[in-house]
């Protein structure tokens, strides 16, 4: 995939002259991106002198990816085949709840065959789609139609050889092979047939006999019968006679599919072979001088055809070589004519013999994959497949392992099984496209501990924002949506640690956007109490920095979280406590804004009585109460309430005089611009005065006292 070694544009130096840059103190450097499989490349100093150099040259940063990012039809192909992959793994997962031998049962094999056939059908669709000359909305094809054709031929051969219908494992394979060959490597061409059939005397054409040989070899009975019938018009009487004999023989060649028992098929095949022998005897009776027509020696050509029908290996191989057919055709013809009962397990020996003299094309990976599959070398097939397309090797390996075709032991060095190595190598390629993160981790998470941890590294780096193409929304909504999607994947694969990290990052991001409501719920979701404490501090900071109104608005958003926390039995009570305080305190300010002073007053006292308010906030609360103490129309506090306020005020004063003022006054101090402890204490004097007045009012007009809430 792609060139291995590239040079970036624009170039900085002529070819082979990088040394000159080094002489001038420059060298290359790079860093790898966690986003995808790319690098940032830049020019660096060979030795940093520490001082600004004189050069005022503009320096570029280049970016390069080590995988070609999937695009266009390839993306669809990847996404859609993952659906089959996931279903296949759902089946393997459920197999774990059964006996270990179940995977070898006909039921399991049937399912594996079904999924494999799904792959084959899907690849076929893709190939057809890619073959159509049409405008493509998502850009030109990334992989050619021929690439998908190769995938199609390889995957369907794999199914033919390794995933026969259950119960047919021991059935002869010849006809299946020939069918596969006829689907994927069409010979002879239809045009040739059309041309010959349009002639009055087709045997006068040079292509006639090669064509007839090829259709015989391929078992294309219809075509061969048609042309044998034309020979009934041939000037040679001998040939006409022979054609008459041959036609019913070709017509009656036994086909496995027409028999319900293999024994009957074998019997019929033997009897048919006897009839072919009879043809041979008749041929031999033709005198030498009658074996030619005006063009050539028809007898030799016909002899080849009869040789094929007889199943003479040497003839089949020679004819194939003459016709330019390769080893695949010889193997398939072998299974039809030489040994019509050829079993899958015996095919290996046949392939070995044929490949000995007709080796596969080493420059053609498809051919190499085919030959490895024929030869019963799944590991070798995987190696070639991985060079051809990591998709193919990954999905081959995925099915080969449960079929018992691969060693399941882990390699001592990589600590991965063969299957996992191929799957992970594909997943790594997928990581070049960050939008495919769900697919990437779906593959990684099927690969043991190593796969899981690699998947975690990818999953935890999924950006907390929507894909740009999606409808625009607020950053908070985007984060919420992204977290939801990631959490779902975490849940499906039980990746709790990742979920928590993602929640922590989300909480941090929300704090920066001042969305404290979400921040708190993410902290709780991550059970990160230290961060929760910090978020609450930030909310309370809002009060100090931006005043009561801004604070009340922010804090109201976290109210729902309090209920959630209180319903849990949380050991981190301290944080809950602070959270409750922030919410209750903001409630007081809301009451004030709504002019519900009675509730505001009673809540202030409750915060003190129930020891919800932290000491550092006591002075702030007391200052807040001044307004309520001075409220004219009614008395908002009971005498005991007011006494509670006074006692807190006393405690602050005493402690401050003992030098612990910092514990109590830090927050109030911060609300006073440029103020210190002294100013804070000054402020508290106002509270004392208000309280004194209030007590006075209580004595004078206790009848106007508001009833306690």
């Amino acid at each position, binding site marked *: 995939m792609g060139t291995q070694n*590239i040079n970036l544009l624009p170039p900085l*130096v002529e070819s082979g002259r990088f040394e000159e840059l080094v002489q001038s103190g420059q060298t*290359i*450097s790079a860093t790898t991106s966690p986003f995808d499989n790319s690098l940032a490349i830049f020019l660096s100093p060979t030795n940093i002198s520490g001082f600004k150099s004189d050069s*005022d040259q503009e320096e570029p940063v280049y970016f*390069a990816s080590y995988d070609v990012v999937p695009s266009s039809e390839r993306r669809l192909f990847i996404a859609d085949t993952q659906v089959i992959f996931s279903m296949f793994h759902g089946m393997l997962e459920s197999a774990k709840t059964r006996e270990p031998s179940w995977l070898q049962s006909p039921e399991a094999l049937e399912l594996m065959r079904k999924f494999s056939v799904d792959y084959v059908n899907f690849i076929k669709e893709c190939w057809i789609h890619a073959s159509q000359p049409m405008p493509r909305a998502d850009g030109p094809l990334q992989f050619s139609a021929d690439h998908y054709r190769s995938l199609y031929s390889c995957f369907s051969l794999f199914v033919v050889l390794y995933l026969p219908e259950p119960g047919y494992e021991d059935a002869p394979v010849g006809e299946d092979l020939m069918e596969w060959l006829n689907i994927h490597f069409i010979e002879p061409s239809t045009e040739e047939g059309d041309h010959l059939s349009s002639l009055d005397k087709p045997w006068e054409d040079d292509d006639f006999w090669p064509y007839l040989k090829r259709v015989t070899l391929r078992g294309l009975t219809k075509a061969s019968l048609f042309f044998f019938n034309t020979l009934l018009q041939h000037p040679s009487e001998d040939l006409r006679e022979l054609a008459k004999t041959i036609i019913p023989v070709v017509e009656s060649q036994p086909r496995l599919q027409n028999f319900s028992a293999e024994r009957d098929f074998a019997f019929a095949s033997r009897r048919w072979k006897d009839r072919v022998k009879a043809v041979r005897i008749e041929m031999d009776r033709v005198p030498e001088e009658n074996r030619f027509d005006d063009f050539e020696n028809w007898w030799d050509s016909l002899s080849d055809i009869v040789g094929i029908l007889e199943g003479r290996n040497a003839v089949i191989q020679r004819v194939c070589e003459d016709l330019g057919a390769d080893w695949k055709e010889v193997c398939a013809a072998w299974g039809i004519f030489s040994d019509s009962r050829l079993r899958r397990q015996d095919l290996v020996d046949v392939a070995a013999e044929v490949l000995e003299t007709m080796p596969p094309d080493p420059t053609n990976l498809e051919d190499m994959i085919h030959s490895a599959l024929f030869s019963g070398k799944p590991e070798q097939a995987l190696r070639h497949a991985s060079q051809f397309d990591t998709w193919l090797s990954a999905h081959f390996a995925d099915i080969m392992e449960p079929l018992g075709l691969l060693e399941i032991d882990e390699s001592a060095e990589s600590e991965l099984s063969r299957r996992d190595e191929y799957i992970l190598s594909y997943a790594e390629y997928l990581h070049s496209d960050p939008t495919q993160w769900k697919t990437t981790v779906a593959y990684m998470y099927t690969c043991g501990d190593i796969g*899981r*941890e690699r998947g975690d590294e990818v999953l935890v780096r999924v950006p907390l924002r929507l894909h740009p193409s999606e409808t625009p929304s607020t950053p908070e909504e985007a984060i919420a949506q992204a977290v939801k999607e990631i959490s779902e994947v975490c849940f499906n694969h039980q990746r709790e640690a990742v979920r928590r990290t993602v929640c922590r990052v989300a909480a941090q991001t929300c704090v920066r956007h001042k969305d404290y409501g979400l921040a708190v719920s993410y902290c709780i979701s991550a059970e990160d109490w230290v961060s929760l404490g910090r978020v609450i501090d930030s909310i309370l900071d809002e009060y100090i920095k931006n005043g009561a109104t801004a604070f009340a608005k922010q804090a109201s958003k976290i109210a729902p979280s309090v209920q959630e926390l209180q319903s849990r039995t949380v050991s981190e009570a301290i944080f809950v406590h602070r959270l409750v305080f922030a919410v209750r305190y903001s409630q007081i300010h809301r009451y004030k804004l709504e002019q519900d002073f009675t509730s505001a007053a009673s809540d202030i006292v409750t915060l003190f009585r129930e020891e919800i308010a932290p000491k550092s906030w006591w002075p702030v609360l007391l200052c807040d109460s001044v307004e309520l103490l001075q409220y004219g129309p009614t008395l908002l506090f009971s005498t005991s309430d007011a006494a509670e306020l006074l006692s807190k005020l006393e405690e602050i004063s005493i402690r401050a005089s003992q030098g612990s003022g910092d514990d109590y006054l830090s927050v109030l101090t911060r609300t006073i611009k440029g103020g210190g402890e002294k100013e804070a204490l000054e402020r508290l004097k106002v509270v004392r005065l208000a309280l004194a007045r209030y007590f006075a009012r209580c004595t004078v007009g206790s009848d106007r006292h508001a009833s306690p809430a």
Partner: protein
Amino acid sequence: MIQTGLIQNAHSDLVTDASYDFYGLRLATCSLDQRIKVWQLDEENGTWKVEDDWKAHDAAVSRVSWAHPEFGSIIASSSFDRTVKIWEHSPDAQPPTVNGNGSASQSQPSSSKWAERAVLLDARGTVRAVAFAPHHFGLKLATISTDNFLRVYECLEQPSLATWQLSEEIDVHTLPSTSSTSVHSRAHTVALATPTQTIAPEGASPSLVAQALLQQQGSAASRPGFGNREADGGWCISWCRDRYWGEILAAGCGISGIIKIIQLSPSRRPTTILVLDPSPSAPVADADKAFAVTCVSWAPSCGRSYHLIATGGRDGHVRIWKVKPAADDDGEQGDDAEMSGDEGRWTASVVGDFDEHQSTVGRVEWNVTGTVLSSAGNDGRVRLWKAALGGNIWRPAGSVGVEQAEETGTDGDKDVDMQS
């Protein structure tokens, strides 16, 4: 390999370091021009636009490092002005520093959003590297400078980032090893080329007096080539990202040619648990022949039972070390006596040694899953390395350069053998 992007005029001088944020959506670059720039990826079209650009130091910036996003948007920069600075990106931040004078030629971004939060002034030499610790250890960072000290800082006030405590200050050269010296002699018997060779940790520390003397002399007497010491040296650090083994980092400094694996612990003094030495059997007298290690990168172990650490140096070699943690019985090493000796100790072996760069290697770095190593050398190429099937052989997996491609496309010829 395929080129995917370009920032035409990134800096007005050579770029000393570039570092992606956690997600790879932002890229911080720093330069000899004393500035830091933060770039943001536009996912729609794959282009990078500058988010912020400011003068960060009074000398060249050597490195930038991103903190984990759970702490916020934070970077640390180290510089030749002997400081390390902490920067935070926040929506309501004031423009960074008074000296943030944007050059007139540059279009200044609408608002500077990165603010200086702290300046760490402890180094007595130029600071060559800074790296945040893995997030599970808290908001911590390590720095290394040409005074040969590794310093570890911990942030005490997290939302404000104002206070950083110097929690460790380690003289890398003299830091003692945990193990007894008995192993030391065994190292001599191990052949250099043996793939499973074990590198013995350094022997006991020199006495305090010797240490003091060493410092007084500025290590000039004992270490050759003092005049070029900074030019020939290498200072680098890399954290072990695995939580399980505790706080461990790899550090190299000066011209010693070795990397020390240093374990930090809240209860004990830091110790060297392993030394990565490409020529352990070389007599001490040959120290002047050692080539400085310029870069080190600790791969994320991602579920493997062992660690991979890559080093690059002035000897032109990229090495991949397989490091096995302590107390891990391993049947691979046949020699029983050797095995019993390895119990409870970390061991290392070289699993990949490449000299394709043929010249100083300036940088090595792993991808996030620890499966692809990149190395950059003075041959002008950035090379990639991947493990072959089975994992025991590391192979070239492509390269990138900035030379003019030859028209006939034969440029790749000299690298043809690289095709895996």
